[in-house]
């Protein structure tokens, strides 16, 4: 047993060889864990949706209108499609192409904004409110929470884009691009589940 405090003067020393960096940054891992916990919120909301639906006599409850399918589908493709420029942007900055990254992030931002705009229109055109019944409550809550995530993503994207335009991002230094990309893909993947459960599935089997 030793009582000494490191480094022990005159104590042994070793040479430690560092390994090349293989994994992701801590910021990336931080975002990955945020996503894990956020996923649970959405899993909880979708479970709530199916719990309420399973105990309901009709769905949507109280003879409410079915979710709008045509425009929502089109804009869903736009939102999920916005991951494609983000992927291109990630690849571009790995090779040091800052110009391509600017275009890619700008395009993805516009696609996300278009989707958000469509969500606002959808909410305006609905003939029911969140107070009407449990269907209205879960519809507004789930889709509204996802829209808030899109909004947050647009805000992060704006900051990242400013950093890119100011020249703070290059081939070796692009952690915030990676972190934003991860978050944006998450927002898109969540929408696949929310869309299939809330928008698409009530139309099936009719």
């Amino acid at each position: 047993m030793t009582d000494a405090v490191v480094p022990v003067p005159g104590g042994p020393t070793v040479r430690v060889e560092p390994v090349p960096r293989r994994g992701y940054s801590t910021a990336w891992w931080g975002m990955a864990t945020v996503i894990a916990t956020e996923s649970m919120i959405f899993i909880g909301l979708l479970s709530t949706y199916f719990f309420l639906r399973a105990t309901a006599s009709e769905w949507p409850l109280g003879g409410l209108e079915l979710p709008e399918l045509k425009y929502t589908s089109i804009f869903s493709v736009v939102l999920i499609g916005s991951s494609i420029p983000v992927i291109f942007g990630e690849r571009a900055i790995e090779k040091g192409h800052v110009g391509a990254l600017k275009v890619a992030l700008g395009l993805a931002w516009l696609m996300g904004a278009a989707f958000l705009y469509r969500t606002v229109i959808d909410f305006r055109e609905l003939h029911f409110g969140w107070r009407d019944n449990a269907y209205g409550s879960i519809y507004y809550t789930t889709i509204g929470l996802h829209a808030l995530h899109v909004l947050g993503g647009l805000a992060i994207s704006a900051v990242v884009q400013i950093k890119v335009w100011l020249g703070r991002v290059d081939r070796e230094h692009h952690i915030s691009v990676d972190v934003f990309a991860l978050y944006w893909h998450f927002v898109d993947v969540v929408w696949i589940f929310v869309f299939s459960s809330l928008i698409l599935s009530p139309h099936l089997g009719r």
Partner: protein
Amino acid sequence: MAVTDDPALAPAPDPHELQEGWGEEAPGIPGFFSTVDHKRIGKRYIYTSFLFFFFAGIVALIMRIQLARPENHFLSPTTYNEFFTMHGTTMIFLFNTPVLAGFGNYFVPLMLGTRDMAFPRMNAFSYWIFLLSGAFIFAAFLLGHSPDGGWFAYTPLTTKAFSPGINMDFWGLGVVLVGISTTVGAINFIVTTFKMRAPGMTLNRMPIFVWSMLVFSFMAIFAVPAVTLAAALLELDRLFGTTFFNPTFGGSTLLYQHLFWFWGHPEVYILFVPATGMISMIIPVFARRALSGYHWVVTALVVVAFMSFGVWVHHMFATGIPPLALSFFSGVSLLITIPSGVQFFSWISTMWHGVVRFTTPMLFAIGFLLIFLLGGITGVMVAVTPFDWQATDSYFVVAHFHYVLNGAVVFPIFGALYYWLPKITGNMLSERLGKLSFWIMFIGFNVAFFPMHILGFLGMPRRIYTYPSGLGWDAINMIISVFSFVFAIGVLLTLVNFVWSNLRPHPAGPNPWGADSLEWATSSPPPEYNFAAIPVVSGRHPLWDQHPLATAVPGDDVVTPSLTPRGTMERETPFTEGLSGDPEALMHIPHETYVPFVAAVGILVLFCGLLVKAVLVGALGLLVGLVGIVWWAWKTGE
């Protein structure tokens, strides 16, 4: 990891030079609000949560005065409801969870051999959110609008129709707030554990307490969202008129229970797992041998974490669940005794093969074993559905969960106080007073809580503010009340011990217990940079096996100098590869900043706005929160 011996000898760094390079902490009030040092934050977590512990304990004593005699009018029914709600809410959300996070905050970086957490500013943020959420819930108590729907806040009792006041809104919003704090803290522990270990510390060599905090964190990030959602949906119902829990409009009251207990049962293990981690650190040191079956214990922790997500319905056996579901959840609840048993036998075997020193921390550990055994056995009993139908909502259940949450979590925490406070304050606690405190607590606890089992069998229901005489409950209730005060005296003695140890300091030295893990390889209390040079680990028990600990020499690369005193002077610490613990990159430890505090206050403002439905206040809070997010994205180093 490639390690070669180097003929050079470790230098003796000059402490003044180290401190100058690291930078002095701002003194006084500015330093108080801006610090990002994990040790100061950890200490605050521990001290703040103990304040809540004392408050909730006093509330419990007042309830016991009310229950000491039949048909007592010491407390009104309303006050009693408020008190038991505050007692449960405070103990679970504001004491047990944060005190464990506090020990984790202080000791995980020290045990891993690094200079701070992975996200020091987030760490400060999670503390401020915890403090403010506590203040938020306490504001309700002080304003006379204390939550009164139970710490579990079951609907429909807690919906607007049946709890019209602002009381339960404090609970719902406060729970969402404290959930943010727990989640942020958990994220920090996960990334710190995987990315910031001393060279040579593979996962296989991590101290069990670090393992337990890792498991705690993974459980927290998957379980806490459920209670956040339960409380958030409850608040949407109460504040904005949604109908999630209103059956008239297609909602479901049972839905609330599912969401709540999907968090609620893992939460029991979220608390229990770090407590067992503490025990697994204390027992080997005082049995003077390595923990038996290290791999078994780690596996048990991970298995418990998985299983704990499959037992929540055993809190709902009496709600009319289909029989198949009853069988499943009953089965998993019985199965979870196996990994718990593995840990139990590992502790017994460690003591059996060792030479036990009966110090105060060890007494608390052994006391824990006995209490946990009883709490575990009653746990098996209530896991059996037919038994549960008889015992549910009776004092038997109160006895069971106090044996588990008070006995099997608070006793390890007290053991941990006696074991680790010398490291935190630099002063030893009195052994004589400590042992006295233990025996009074142990006797007080058992005589206070064991008779509750019997009360349950005699039919006394939970949550009642009084009872008629002549049911055979009178004498038992009086005994319980008297001994709950005995327990409190035991707790008080530890407080006296703590104060005394600071008035009449008894310097502890770096390693007073002859322990094996890295937190004892630095002075007590540790300097702000933890380790002037980061030790190089070659086994599971560095301080037992390496005489003395080796340190690294700086290489030609950019990373390895941070392992040496040069890293301290540059305010750097290495990032390591997740599995092996090989250094691969550098972290610059951020300086003090007010931003975490400001962001936390912003979020509190938002919640106050929601509480009174003031749109402007809410919008202002949202704005501050958004600015915080933008600021963080801006500051993320490339």
